[in-house]
């Protein structure tokens, strides 16, 4: 007793194959048309050659690659340290913002003011204030290194962002979870530590990683304080030869640094979605 596909099934499959083929051809044609349009527009530009020379010169690429890569190592270290600090302080801010205890009211107030201030103010402004303002106070115990102060400024700004993301996660955990934990006799702190936090953290991994990617690329801004990072190194080469290719090199280096984290974010998001589908939560 073999199974013979019915005529209607065969017809459906034939139609599906046809429509798939049609989609593929449309994609190919539209890609070609798009490429032709871009090529045509660029070919109409009289300055295309000059721009190519100043931004994409192989000669200056070779010259700048060493100093820029030396600089990106500094960016890399700043990124890692800032990310760790931001996660720690962001957690504290989120904790302060979500606490309901009356004793912590002043802390809650400070955390709210902090978030409003540092999330609203441009990062460049914070960099200048911290990088040039603080050393100006002439306290001997405050380090004057551009790298340290730059890291501090980045941490200040991104802690505000990450704190808000974590807070959203904490508030997204159902109050019935807290109720169940308290009914078991867990204290408020134990409830936060073992029940609310682990769930909150999982919920916000994608937006959290998104902020960290953004932080990585913004680490290039510490160059305004004079730290010899990738951007600053590129600037030095540019000033020497009046060619912008070094910036492109630095840009590519930053992109290459952020791509692993971006892919990781995609992977985690996809895995979470998949898990949710499997659990039938959609």
């Amino acid at each position, binding site marked *: 007793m073999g199974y013979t596909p019915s005529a209607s099934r065969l017809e459906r499959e034939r139609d599906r194959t046809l429509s798939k083929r049609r989609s593929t051809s449309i994609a190919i044609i539209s890609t070609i048309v798009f490429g032709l349009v871009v090529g045509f527009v660029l070919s109409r530009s009289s300055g295309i050659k000059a721009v190519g020379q100043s931004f994409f010169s192989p000669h200056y690429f070779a010259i700048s690659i060493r100093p820029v890569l030396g600089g990106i190592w500094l960016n890399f270290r700043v990124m890692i340290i800032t990310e760790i600090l931001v996660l720690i302080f962001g957690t504290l801010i989120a904790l302060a913002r979500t606490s309901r205890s009356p004793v912590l009211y002043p802390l809650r107030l400070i955390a709210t003011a902090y978030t409003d201030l540092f999330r609203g103010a441009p990062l460049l402004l914070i960099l200048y204030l911290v990088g040039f303002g603080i050393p100006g106070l002439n306290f001997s115990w405050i380090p004057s290194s551009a790298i340290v102060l730059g890291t501090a400024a980045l941490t200040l700004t991104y802690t505000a962002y990450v704190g808000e993301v974590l807070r959203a996660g904490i508030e997204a955990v159902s109050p*019935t*979870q807290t*109720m*169940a*934990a*308290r*009914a*078991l*006799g*867990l*204290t408020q702190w*134990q409830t936060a530590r*073992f*029940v609310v936090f*682990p*769930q909150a953290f*999982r919920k916000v991994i994608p937006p959290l990683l998104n902020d960290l990617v953004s932080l990585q690329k913004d680490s290039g801004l510490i160059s305004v304080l004079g730290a010899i990072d990738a951007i600053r190194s590129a600037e030095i080469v540019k000033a020497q030869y009046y060619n912008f290719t070094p910036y492109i090199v630095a840009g590519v280096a930053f992109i290459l640094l952020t791509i692993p984290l971006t892919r990781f974010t995609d992977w985690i998001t996809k895995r979470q979605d998949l898990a949710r589908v499997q*659990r*039938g*939560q959609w």
Partner: protein
Amino acid sequence: MKKSQDDLLVINNLRKSFNNDLVLDDVSLTLKEHEVKVLIGASGSGKSTLLRCINLLERIDDGQLLLAGEDIASEKIDRDRIRSQIGTVFQSFNLFPHLTVIKNIALAPVQVHGWSKEEAMQKAMDLLERFGLKEKANQYPDLLSGGQQQRVAILRAIISKPKVLLLDEVTSALDPILIGEVLSLISELKAEGMTMMIATHEMGFAYKVADELMFLHKGVIAESGKPEKLLAKPKSKELKEFLKSLHDAGRL
């Protein structure tokens, strides 16, 4: 105010309101050790609120709550300590989704009762095995059926041997087919002598498991007594109406 040696939970003249809405009005009852009291009554009659007052998830307006002779409504009391002596199971299970089944059960024994991790995991596994959930030990709650989740929630509530177990409409979120497995677990607990307060809409189960049935109506215990007596010969007009409405809905 009577009080004898085996009065486990004594409630005297309990009063509770939410924003001028009186939910419990002068409720008094005494739960003896190994006794099972079942609360019946329409939705909104105050059954859940009464249970939530007992495990201190709600503060009472007036009255007295005594657990093993200790005044647990006192502001001076350590609420976490009291809650750790009372098991509570909710209608919506409320298992912790980020923890496996066995870790759900072992969390409070380790964190609250100071058991060693090995001991807690071992006892949790023993319980799971006894109640036919051994294979689910290392799964996450979301992968279990509703009945299995609720049974796990009950085990989570009883592992640390609470003085009293509160069950708040624990079968209301379940398919009729799954209700049976939860109810038979509760019957086993009764056979073991667990002291329980149960709010339920399952009249057949209430009849079977209750030492005393209490009918709550608009925050007042309108009638109480042995189930066979109460259900066969209801005295108050309210209980008669309630039983008739259940009968008409085909639930009795």
